[in-house]
């Protein structure tokens, strides 16, 4: 046993020295930034009462913070956090009721995919913007929110190619036991891959 450990360690250190650290250590999984936060562009109120929207700033600001936390967490678990790849249970916990079941069926659109561990080596440069609208009830309490999301990231596939991941969508959220949860969504994925430079530099 001890010999095996020594052999693995020597191979790992040797690989690191030979390749300048560009190869993963033996046993290491895919790599990623490990954290993610949307850039919040705006939070605005849609009031069903006669209260001027400016007087709702505090209320919807608090709601906006809660909605952003949910969306940050969802995209972290669905795309950025490599430990979640292929097992998106934590991401789907952010969906409410029957929506969770439907979201699980849409795993290939809402996440990096059920086989992300096999398909991707790493994910980098995640970025995204978030716009939030909060619908308030007649008593000016936040009732529902729409999160408009634009998310981009670069993903390196296990075959050596790169993909730009694009997820653009609208998520409807409501408060469930103090947490903003997603109950409806409309999401577009439009992934694109970089052309590989040719070996000869000319078309064949």
């Amino acid at each position, binding site marked *: 046993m001890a010999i095996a450990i020594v052999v693995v360690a020597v191979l790992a250190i040797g690989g690191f020295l030979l390749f300048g650290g560009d190869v993963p250590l033996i046993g290491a999984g895919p790599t990623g930034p490990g954290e993610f936060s949307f850039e919040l562009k705006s939070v605005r109120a849609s009031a069903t009462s006669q209260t001027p929207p400016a007087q709702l700033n505090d209320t919807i600001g608090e709601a906006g913070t809660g909605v952003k936390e949910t969306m940050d967490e969802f995209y972290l678990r669905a795309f950025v956090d490599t430990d979640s790849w292929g097992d998106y249970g934590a991401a789907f916990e952010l969906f409410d009721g029957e929506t969770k079941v439907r979201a699980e069926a849409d795993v290939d*659109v809402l996440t990096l995919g059920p086989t992300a561990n096999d398909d991707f080596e790493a994910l980098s440069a995640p970025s995204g913007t978030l716009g939030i609208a909060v619908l308030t009830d007649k008593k000016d309490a936040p009732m529902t929110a729409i999160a408009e999301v634009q998310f981009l990231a670069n993903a390196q596939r296990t075959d050596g190619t790169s993909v730009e991941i694009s997820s653009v969508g609208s998520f409807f959220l409501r408060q469930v036991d103090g947490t903003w949860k997603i109950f409806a*969504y*409309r999401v577009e994925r439009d992934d694109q891959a970089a052309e590989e430079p040719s070996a000869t530099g000319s078309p064949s």
Partner: protein
Amino acid sequence: MMRRRMVAVLATLASGVAGLGVATLQATPAASVPLLQIGEAHAEFAPTLQGNRPIFILILGSDSRPGTPLERGLCDSIHILGINPKAKRSTLVGIPRDSYVPIATGGTNKINTALAQGGPQGMVDTVEDLTGVRLDYYMITGFDGMKRIFDALGGLKVNAPYSFEGHEGTPFDEGRQTLTGAQALEFARTRKSLSQGDFDRSMNQGRLLLAAFGQFMTEFRKDPNALFHWIAVGMRNVATDVPLKELLTLAFTSSEIRPKRVTNLVAVGSIGTAGGVSIVNLPSPNPVFQDVAADGYVLPKDIPAENAPSG
């Protein structure tokens, strides 16, 4: 309802993307590497009403003036909106305001007095007794509310089946046009210049509601934020017993119904007088009411010609 489409990977591009045919592609500087689309996908879901049980909403236009509660005016516009979630069909049935019917709070009178006499519940009870439809909710707006709604929505795009002059002199041409709030109100209130008077007016009111539905659908498909805008504008100008959460579900449900699957008709009757006042006598039993009460909608082929006056 979830809908998803996967666009097939373009084979010629995929070969390059997959690194199988790199020599066939023009080399480009790394800083400006063009991107090739490799996959487009769409997913959506929203909680909607399910099942065959229809939902009925009584939509009322009150003539209450400033200072008078909406719920205590005379009804200039009376429509039953039926929605069948399973069939994804809907029907608007207009009831002429001069319909002479038993009023739930007592006596027989024009139906438009039921709101003033008994408030929303009195109106609901009267319409239920008349039609056999079990109403789930009501919505009431007034003259000013209607104007504010359509102005806040940027106008209402309506398709007039014929030209006519509004009661305040506005010419409404045949065809598509965008009405301001004031014009929409005049469109809805005009009666005397229409060939079938009260019946045509009720039909026109239904046209406005249908136009609003179609406009909502178009805007919602383009931008989900439109849902909040419509609900906020509506709720600021409507008295209703629909809970906000239920309104969202109804909106999601309605968004699955194509405008072509919504029928607009009027409960037509014979013209008569009562106490020297012009009234409408509705047939009883009324096949239109029976049809819509059964499942929430009337198919176009089942609409008697007389129940779709003037187009």
